[in-house]
């Protein structure tokens, strides 16, 4: 009886074999073959030249994830302490921007950060640049420094800072929501018990709340880190072409100007392996429960 009903999964198992497993195998096959068709390791030999991009992608993704955590954890914690009505409205407010396509939200930052953008216009309107130039001038004459005194704008767009900002902006809700949903479900009496038993607020947080919220944190970190490390649209829009990330490198080989799907596959494969390894190591710290905290 039991076995017969498990047959319901059969069509999907076939589907998975065709559209999940086969594509990944193809990536592996492409990664180890040359454009002419033979087997080769050449694609991986070329990889050495791209370690800068790997480093940069992982670095920016780690920074973005850390910033999301530093902002997201306290916000989730504060939210969970509020009344049910407030919590409800706040959750909706955090989810709402996610319903708007992330490209639109990223594009909005372009107009804000550009050299002639809103922020620089604002700075110029409040005469911030005059002030900066005056201060630099004074410092120059006082200490013989060579600071620029003709600053007309701050360079914000097309920098790695702008890319990190874009990642944080887009993925912050992915950090807040899982942490919040774990904290909101947490049994308050545990905290009270800890306090009753003489724990200081800090100790109660460290020994009760933090460990209990860890699954939410891990889930949030994964949900921010993976899209950050592989993005190509955010770096393209906010980094100009000055901040090439792994995603851009892969896109370049498939639909961009350097058509070479074999190399693109090799880069994808290496990225996939590193990301899976990171996730595995990280999840060893938590309970490797296969339950992603959904919205």
């Amino acid at each position, binding site marked *: 009886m*039991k076995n017969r*009903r*498990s*047959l*319901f*999964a059969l069509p999907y*198992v076939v589907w998975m074999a065709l*559209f999940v*497993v086969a*594509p*990944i195998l*193809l*990536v592996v096959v492409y990664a180890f073959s040359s454009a002419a068709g033979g087997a080769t390791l050449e694609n991986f030999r070329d990889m050495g*030249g791209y370690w*800068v*991009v790997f480093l940069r992608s992982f670095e920016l993704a780690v920074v973005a994830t850390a910033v999301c955590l530093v902002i997201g954890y306290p*916000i989730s914690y*504060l*939210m969970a302490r509020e009344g049910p009505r407030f919590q409800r409205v706040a959750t*909706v*407010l955090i989810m*709402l*921007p*996610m*319903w*708007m*396509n992330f*490209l*639109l939200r990223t*594009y*909005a930052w372009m*107009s*804000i950060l*550009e*050299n*002639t953008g*809103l922020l620089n216009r604002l700075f110029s309107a409040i005469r911030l640049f005059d002030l900066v130039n005056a201060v630099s001038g004074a410092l120059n004459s006082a200490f013989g420094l060579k600071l620029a005194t003709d600053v007309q704008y701050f360079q914000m767009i*097309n920098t790695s800072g702008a890319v990190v900002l874009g990642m944080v*902006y887009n993925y912050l809700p992915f950090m807040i929501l899982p942490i919040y949903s774990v904290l909101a479900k947490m049994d308050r009496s545990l905290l009270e018990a800890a306090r009753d038993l003489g724990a200081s607020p800090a100790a109660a947080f460290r020994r009760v709340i933090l460990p209990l919220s860890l699954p939410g944190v891990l889930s949030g970190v994964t949900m921010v880190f993976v899209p950050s490390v*592989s993005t190509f649209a955010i770096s393209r829009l906010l980094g*100009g072409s*000055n901040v090439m990330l792994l995603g851009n*490198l892969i896109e370049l*080989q*498939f*639909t*961009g*100007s*350097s*058509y*070479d*799907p074999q190399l693109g*596959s090799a880069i*994808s494969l290496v*990225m*996939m392996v590193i*990301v*899976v390894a990171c*996730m595995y190591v990280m999840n060893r710290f938590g309970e490797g429960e296969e339950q*992603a905290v959904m919205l």
Partner: protein
Amino acid sequence: MNGKNRFGGRLAMVLTFLFLYAPIFVLMVFSFNDSSSRTLWKGFTLDWYGELFQDGIIINSLYTTLLVALLSSLIATVAGTFAAIGFFNMKRRVRTPLMTINNIPMTNADIVTGVSMCLLFVAAFGAWNSFAQQMNEANGTSLPSLAMGFGTLLIAHITFNIPYVILSVMPKLRQMDKNLVEAAQDLGCTWMGAFFKVVLPEIKPGVVNGLLIAFTMSVDDFVISYFTAGPTTSTLAMTIYGMTKKRISPKINAVSTLLFVTVLLLLVIVNLREMQQSRAKKDPRRAARSAASSRRGTILGAGALAAVLLALILLSRQNNSRVVNVCGWGENIDPALIEQFQEETGIRVNYQTAEGNETMYSKVVLGGSGYDVIVPSDYMVSQMRQEGLLAELDFANIPNFSLIDDTYKHLSYDPENLYSVPYTWGTLGIIYNTAMVDEPITSWSALFDPQYAGQVLMINNPRDAIGVGLMYLGYSVNTTDEGEIREAYQLLAEAREQGVYQSFVMDEVYDKMEAGEAAIAVYYAGDFLAMYENNPDLAFVVPQEGSNWFVDAMCVLKDAPHKEAAEEWINFICSTDACLANMDYIWYASPNVQALADYPAYYEELYGEEMDPALYAIMAAPEEVLAGCEAYDALPAETNDLYKELWTVLGIG
């Protein structure tokens, strides 16, 4: 908890919300701006909304997005529910590895999922198409050739949606009392009956939740669609990405505002209903009824909204049976011509754009194509011709070819002129902002000069960018000497290292040069004239070292699905009237000899003033300028590989 603490917490939350909403607010405000500037307020208007609804590309992509979201979420919900029941009834030993595979699309980076499925489709269609071709030739059958498109997009969306459905149905199955099904069966129910009467009601919240998540994921997806939709199908997200790479129009802001307001309204309605429901909770019977009706109402409401939208779009679309898929450059055609052609012939034009020759080539090769007409430049025509990608044209269907100046026929890229019809021609040069540089620019050296650090926009395609280096060094743009090419690359790499380049751009150049974001750019003469209309401080120069002279030509792909319509389109575009209108819109010189000669008169009639001869000379470069220019030839494969390699390394920085 003391009040001060709470105040601080709330302040932090308000700041976070401000951070989340400020950019959206900016987008919305500027959708009403009476100017195409994204940062200067010029007054209130609703024009962008009007234009939005007339923009066939945006409306079409909205239709695709909704249709694929609706279909994929419904299919995924049914398939995922059955799969979850199947998994649930499996032995743990079998289930665990299958669940791991099921989780792959959720945990993998989107780009890897997208790229891997793209490879699968390319490989499968490649195999099928060559098989079909052989069969057709040998047995006279007419097996169709396949290309990526709506079908592959749908498969991809179903694939990444099912795991979310399983994830949301599985916990409900675990919570269900197993004895219920057995009890129903003991009482004489068939298993199917038990499923519909007992299991389904129990797991319904999970199924509904799965459906909603799947729908949201599908609407929100960009990356996977980008790699699996093929070149002729476009979702809203893909269209937006395409738009951000061109002259940015506030139509984007209008789209965002409408989307945002729609979602906001939906959420408000849902929440109001649920609040009513919680108020009704005091009376348990009423509560149960209102809860059920509220949930049903919400889903019905959302479903009805989507259906109404689809129907509206279907009605507003001219649903012509004949279609032609055209791939051109951004800002490179007068949209009125597309409208006119559609009205005259009843053929719907699906107009897509590519950023540059190399990008278009990737799309044609990787996408299994689907385009009918493409507009590559000379050297790319040659390369594609040699690779057997182009179809021979039937010039009997293109009588207007006779209007084309003989100078542009039988050129080296198509010596017998079997494959191409010239579309436009022009020169590459330097565009600079006279208010931002001290002295007129006359040499390519400005592009490598640290004095202009952060002020230069380098062109974002390998042939032109490395070509600039070659021209500056006095080498031929068609050199195959590795040393010379590497020397040119070195110039670019050093300038990049010194921070000369603000960015590498293609059509983003319009916005940036018009707004004074950058002082110097490398781009094409026609586009300069379009920018000059909006910023008279700009100037154009063909540098003293000489430059590139190019012809963009219309070609039909060998596996084009609509060859006849394609030739009709080409013939239409070659007519003198179309060439005049097009020249007036895109400012690229036409190879139609009469249109080019008549243009100044046409301009005078249209605008009531004489055309500045200097501008005409930029559009249609005179003999003496062209004498110093060289056309690109197709390069041998090993030189192409060198270009690709250097280009990738240059991008890394």
